């Protein structure tokens, strides 16, 4: 039971600690900094920023209104009148592309945040409580995990109807078990340490131990998980829109555009191709960020000798 008495003797090889005033960045800020040094992260952030920029500023740059008829359906591009031609109802494709990014990005972010909040809470509780609480919650999560995320989401959306908030919540909930597993593993490791025992001996409330003592030590793996789940959220939300469960016509939305215009793909491919490319590039961007963060996480752990 007692820990072997191995003394830490590596201090001689550690460069002296540099004290930057009193405040020090938290662990996740350090991970971010480490990640930023990598080329892949910079490319990822560049891509993500560019696409978010298109989605945010796009509506002001759009030459037409997204519901305005500018030409017969499936007209080929005519520069400079219609850079990307018209869609199945004769709307300007460029305008709809510029309008249609906001929803995907916003909904995906919201879903990821919900998934993270729920998953972290469950992970902290199960990792710290152990025994039957851990067992029962994790088994329930295993059941959720057994369904592919898209099937689970479709199931609820088809029962409860296509509502935006519902999609966000369901996608978030379907992320929770995976995030919970990561949070639980990290919590298990941290809650072995004696500072948690010390807080227990003082009689500090359990929830305070979870959020004040343990959570600050597990932020880095959660950051990586956030990046990863964001990628999945984008894919899922776009897929649901494509299937007609997201934004409803005549709203402009990338997922929806792919569906609406696929019948004309041979004569006018742009209204399908451009949203597909944008969604694809966006997920590559978020994935590169997640990858950079993951590598930074391992790097940081290696440097401090924590396994």
């Amino acid at each position, binding site marked *: 039971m007692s820990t072997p008495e191995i003394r830490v003797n590596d201090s001689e*090889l550690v460069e002296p600690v540099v004290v930057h005033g009193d405040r020090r960045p938290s662990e996740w800020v350090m991970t971010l900094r480490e990640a930023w040094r990598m080329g892949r992260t910079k490319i990822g952030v560049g891509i993500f920023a560019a696409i978010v920029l298109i989605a945010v500023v796009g509506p002001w740059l759009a030459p037409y209104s997204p519901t305005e008829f500018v030409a017969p359906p499936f007209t080929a591009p005519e520069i400079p009148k219609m850079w990307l031609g018209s869609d199945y109802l004769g709307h300007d494709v460029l305008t709809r592309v510029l309008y249609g990014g906001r929803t995907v990005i916003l909904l995906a972010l919201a879903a990821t945040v919900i998934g993270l909040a729920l998953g972290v809470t469950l992970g902290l509780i199960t990792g710290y409580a152990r025994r039957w609480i851990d067992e029962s919650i994790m088994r329930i999560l295993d059941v959720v995990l057994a369904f592919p995320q898209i099937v689970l989401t479709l199931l609820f959306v088809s029962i409860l109807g296509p509502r935006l908030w519902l999609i966000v919540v369901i996608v978030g909930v379907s992320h929770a078990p995976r995030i919970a597993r990561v949070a639980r593993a990290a919590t298990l490791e941290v809650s072995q340490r*004696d500072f948690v025992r*010390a807080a227990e001996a003082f009689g500090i409330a359990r929830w305070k131990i979870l959020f004040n003592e343990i959570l600050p030590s597990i932020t880095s793996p959660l950051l990586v998980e956030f990046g990863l789940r964001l990628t999945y959220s984008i894919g899922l939300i776009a897929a649901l829109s494509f299937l007609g469960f997201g934004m409803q016509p005549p709203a402009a939305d990338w997922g929806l555009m792919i569906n609406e215009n696929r019948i004309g793909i041979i004569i006018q491919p742009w209204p399908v191709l451009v949203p597909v490319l944008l969604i694809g590039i966006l997920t590559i961007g978020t994935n590169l960020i997640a990858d950079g963060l993951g590598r930074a996480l391992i790097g940081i752990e290696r440097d401090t000798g924590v396994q």
Partner: protein
Amino acid sequence: MTQGPTPTREREAVLKVEGLRIVLDPSGVDIDDDVSLEIHRGEVLGLVGESASGKTTVGTSLLDYQRRGAKIAGGHVEIDGKDVLAMDAGALRTIRGGAISYVPQDSSASLNPALRIGTQLMEILEVHGFGSSQADREARLAQMMAEVLLPSDKQFLRRYPHQLSGGQQQRVAIAMAFANRPRVIVLDEPTTALDVTTQAHVLDTVRDLTRSYGVAALYITHDLAVVANLADRIAVMYAGRVVEIGTRDELFDQGHHPYTRKLLASIPDITGERALRGIPGWAPRPGQRPPGCAFTPRCDWRVEKCSEAFPPVEEVSPAHYVRCWRYREVGAQRATTDHQLRDKSLSAPRADEKQVISVREVTAYYQHKETLHDISASLSERRCLSLVGESGSGKTTLARCIAGLHPHKIVGDIEFMGKPLARDARGRPRATRQAIQYIFQSPYSSLNPRKTIAQILSQPLKVFFDLSRSEMEDRMVQALEQVALDSSLLSRYPDQLSGGERQRLAIARSLAAEPTVLICDEVTSWLDVSVQAAIIELLAALQRDMGLSMLFVTHNLALVRSISQEVAVMNDGRIVEYGLVDAVLEDPQADYTKKLLSDTPTV
């Protein structure tokens, strides 16, 4: 088995180190500088110093190996006249594990967990082409196992490292090091992770093997007591420099460097004749070392000259060298005046004893296994009771049961001031949680690395007292003062402190709760001997001045006299001997206590 200086016929230096300089790689800050040593055939040289003194770095340099971030910047290492540092990779591979071998601190980490020990041992013989046939090597393997007192039957050799105990693993590592009959062997604190009885076995093995094969051995340790009966000569390192080197007897009887003297005074004295004295402060890390003699800030003998220039090597007698400006005066002072006598009046029995904590017929389980059997003991007001035992003896379990931190089944009565205690700390009233404070073994684990020292100290204050902001601040400063830490540390983080300072901080956190009972669980086992002594001094003073009752858990019997009045010796979940410290240590009754006493290294 004590031997004097090495006889002259063996005075051929097998290993010669000259002017070795090792620096941190990008910055060029020196870890070690101007290290010169010689080790002769069949001789053990003890290399002694605190953490961060650069002793491990010297040890691995003898094999021309440097960990990431360090490099050798100068000097020579010669084995039988051949310069190791000038060798190419192929030649190095041949001598590592051949002519020179290394025993690491933690053998559980150095043995390959996926290979059977027989395979691993055979591998080292094969790699170096030992003998001429497989039969030769198998015979050697059996002999090796016999040398380290391990069985060499097929079944044992088929075991994996995790199937061996810590002591057995360390002996396998030693067998490996001696496998190819090396000329030089480097042992890097190979017993730190072991219990005293196991340590005694390992030390015997090392001594016998070096003598009988005429190997030159370098034994690295922070604990002078460990090498007291093993080393022929001792080199004392401080801040990357050898400050004194000489025969064991000369250094122990008439050390000429103030640091040597102080290290000796910090060794716990099992006879109880002298009080323990720590060295204030800590050994500076590379890059933070003061100019001149780096020991100056901690030295009682310092004069102006000391911080101006590093003293030259002075010869005290043949083969006894020292680097101190005032070595003559230091050497002239009799060693015994360094020793303060221990205050024995405290350890006399008292009549008016009031029991603070009493444990009656307690049996405790770990999951479903019974780990404590029918324990009865009591702690009296203003007294200190030591719980002594090896790992697995149940001493920590008992301490945790009392603290309410044992999350498994406990049967029996544990009382505090005559009232039964709830099993779980959370189930206890606030006043009880406040009164009983627990200090953990490792200050590296017990302090949240993400919190500032102010946040750490505010924890008990917030839980137990209703204080305003300024009152809180005052209490925190007061708590730090009690443990001799500076209040400017409040905004720092634990990893900016040394190990000793961290443990002081942990003590301060417990004191901030204003307890009446302090439970100290192996609080010095992660610390250097010099720092351990300072922590023990502090705890003893606090206990005396604040009238605390203290439960002191330790594996080191030698410490017991310096801190406690009563002692309970534990083995296998039972108390085998219980009584006043002087009585138990002077006239032990239980065989186990006798064995523990004889295995404890002393000076």
